[in-house]
């Protein structure tokens, strides 16, 4: 009992960080496994994947070069074509947010702080060999240099802030080519017609599976919770793509059966929600969890951790190398609905379309405190929704585990009001 022994040890900072992250991860995974009715068997692949990576620090890509990306605007097609593995480093851990808070302004975005904290700790299960950082939002643009100062190899990819003009399109096409040149040099491998074509097709196939999954969410009885879908799409950040595709095919098969058995992941009265705003990234599913624990169901989302990653596919006219590169560039610019752009009516249109296609009852718009662009765009989105007669709830949150009470009251009241609207319509 007496602690005064010479050899007495305690956790190193890395061990402590791992334990904290494991505790965050297991808490959410246990909720997903246990707290909702009729769990989906094939989701276990994803639960297990996150558990192994975040509770047991399992490396997935020992044999490959790991290409870190700071944002979805770095084309994965080119990374796969050059035989690398893209690992998206956007981070949802409060543990890492706390580490990053010491290095960044207090009011900075928790996602960026968590990402910086993760780099500062250097504690990765799959450590990136090089990091590509697109100049999208201010905070991500600026922290490239911070991360570089920790000793990582960083390469900035110039991203334009307007998307209407032909000039910005040209500018971005040049950036994408430059990115391909840099990565090609790093990998010592040439980009060619066949490796790029097969990479585009592989990602295209993964996207088509996401679209099939989305179709299930248009049904009157939705067989899968939104929070499970977020987990599935988050896994695409880092999983082995072939394993992800297999797991997704299994999931789709099971969902097919569930539809035949008329299994509803929620209840008949449960309001259908379109989720938009700052991305929910594992394990920060605070708001989606609150929504679905309050008897609503997320049927679609407009976020960069999920829908925006899969929605639009690379459309190629001619399968020539340069045509493919241009098509990739266009997909990442023209289809992007990120609020970093000057004008962003595309995003409003996308949300309205999602509400109509998925017969949603309302929208939840969540911004991280400190995520300036989403905070700013809240006003125009709220106005547009009001015009359309679509109920919308705007929430601000961060990664701290302790604000559940106030948020849940607002979410519950919003969902109750949607239920009342439903009953009155009948």
């Amino acid at each position, binding site marked *: 009992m007496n*602690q005064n022994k010479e050899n007495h040890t*305690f*956790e190193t900072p890395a061990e402590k960080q791992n*334990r904290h992250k*494991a505790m965050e991860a297991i808490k959410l995974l246990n909720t997903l496994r246990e707290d909702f009715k009729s769990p989906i068997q094939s989701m276990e692949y994803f639960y297990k994947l996150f558990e192994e990576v975040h509770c047991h620090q399992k490396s997935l890509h020992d044999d490959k070069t790991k290409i870190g990306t700071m944002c979805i605007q770095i084309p994965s097609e080119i990374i796969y074509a050059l035989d690398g593995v893209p690992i998206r480093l956007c981070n949802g851990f409060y543990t890492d947010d706390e580490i990053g808070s010491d290095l960044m302004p207090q009011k900075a975005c928790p996602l960026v702080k968590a990402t910086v904290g993760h780099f500062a700790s250097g504690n990765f299960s799959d450590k990136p060999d090089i990091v590509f950082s697109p100049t999208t939002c201010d905070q991500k643009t600026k922290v490239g240099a911070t991360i570089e100062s920790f000793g990582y190899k960083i390469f900035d990819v110039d991203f334009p802030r307007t998307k209407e003009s032909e000039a910005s399109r040209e500018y971005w096409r040049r950036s994408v080519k430059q990115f391909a040149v840099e990565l090609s040099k790093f990998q010592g491998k040439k980009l060619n017609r066949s490796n790029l074509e097969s990479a585009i097709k592989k990602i295209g196939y993964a996207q088509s599976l996401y679209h099939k999954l989305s179709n299930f969410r248009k049904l009157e009885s939705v067989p899968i919770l939104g929070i499970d879908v977020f987990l599935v799409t988050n896994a695409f950040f880092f999983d082995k793509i072939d394993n992800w595709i297999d797991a997704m095919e299994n999931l789709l098969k099971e969902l097919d059966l569930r539809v035949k058995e008329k299994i509803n992941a929620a209840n008949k009265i449960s309001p259908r929600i379109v989720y938009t705003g700052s991305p929910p990234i594992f394990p920060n599913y605070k708001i989606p969890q609150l929504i679905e624990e309050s008897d609503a169901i997320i049927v679609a989302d407009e976020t960069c951790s999920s829908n925006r990653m899969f929605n639009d596919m690379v459309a190629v006219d001619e399968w020539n190398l340069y045509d493919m590169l241009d098509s990739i560039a266009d997909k990442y610019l023209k289809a992007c609905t990120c609020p970093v752009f000057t004008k962003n009516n595309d995003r409003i249109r996308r949300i309205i379309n999602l509400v109509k296609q998925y017969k949603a009852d309302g929208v939840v718009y969540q911004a991280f405190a400190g995520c300036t662009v989403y905070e700013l765009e809240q006003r125009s989105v709220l106005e547009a929704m009001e015009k359309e007669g679509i109920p919308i709830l705007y929430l601000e949150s961060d990664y701290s585990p302790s604000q559940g009470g106030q948020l849940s009251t607002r979410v519950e009241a919003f969902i109750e009001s949607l239920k009342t609207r439903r009953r009155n319509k009948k």
Partner: protein
Amino acid sequence: MRYFAGIDIGSTSIKITIIDENKNIIGFKTSASGSMFYKYAQETLDALLQELSIDKNNLVYIVATGYGRKLYKEADENISEITANALGARAAAKEYGEIKTIINIGGQDSKAISLDNEGNVVNFAMNDRCAAGTGKFLDVVALKLEIGVDELGEYHFKSTGTPLSVSSTCAVFAESEIIGLLGNNHSVEDIVCGVHYSIAKRIVKLVKRVGVKEGIYFDGGPAMNGGLVSAIENELGHAIFIPQYPQITTSYGAAIMGVDSYKYEQNL
């Protein structure tokens, strides 16, 4: 021979320590505070004197401390538990080294105390509002898990999975969280471990408020729980010293104050 008593009347238990003029511990006794602090304190003191065969007349100075100290009218002096804790900790750890930081978890409160090189209290922080993450909380947890409070440490070290965090350290809310975890067949060991880490995180925040200085001493009943000690060390990233009898540090400090005050009054 002259004797001195320190009586620490806490929310949960009464701790009495008797020392001699040289500040050596002669004996100590603890009992539950119950509903009548004064009566139980008196009974405990009488019993202790009898055990030690000390004549009441030789007990020359009594210092009361703790939350119920003002109810013990017979005391020659009463001092706050912060001062008493600081005095007791420095004396108890004399052989270990200089104590700069004290963590105390009591029955219904917890505190962090920062000392300067002379042992003066320079800063302290206490939990506010409620008994979250205190000894009472551990009682409630043990009761729910149907194990003894003294078994918590053992269960902690048997945990093999990821500690299951209990997000609420409010005893009332945590109880329902624990019921939920048990309902889903999670191991008692992992729950205990998670509970200890929840308390540890809370206490470490308190310590950071006063500043972490090497020479860290942990006392109060919960310091006898090895699992909690290990959790706090891990969260803090520093080794901490646990005295042989963690629950009596504050009463020991009060008794030491008794010696000093007596000598001052008697011009010795």
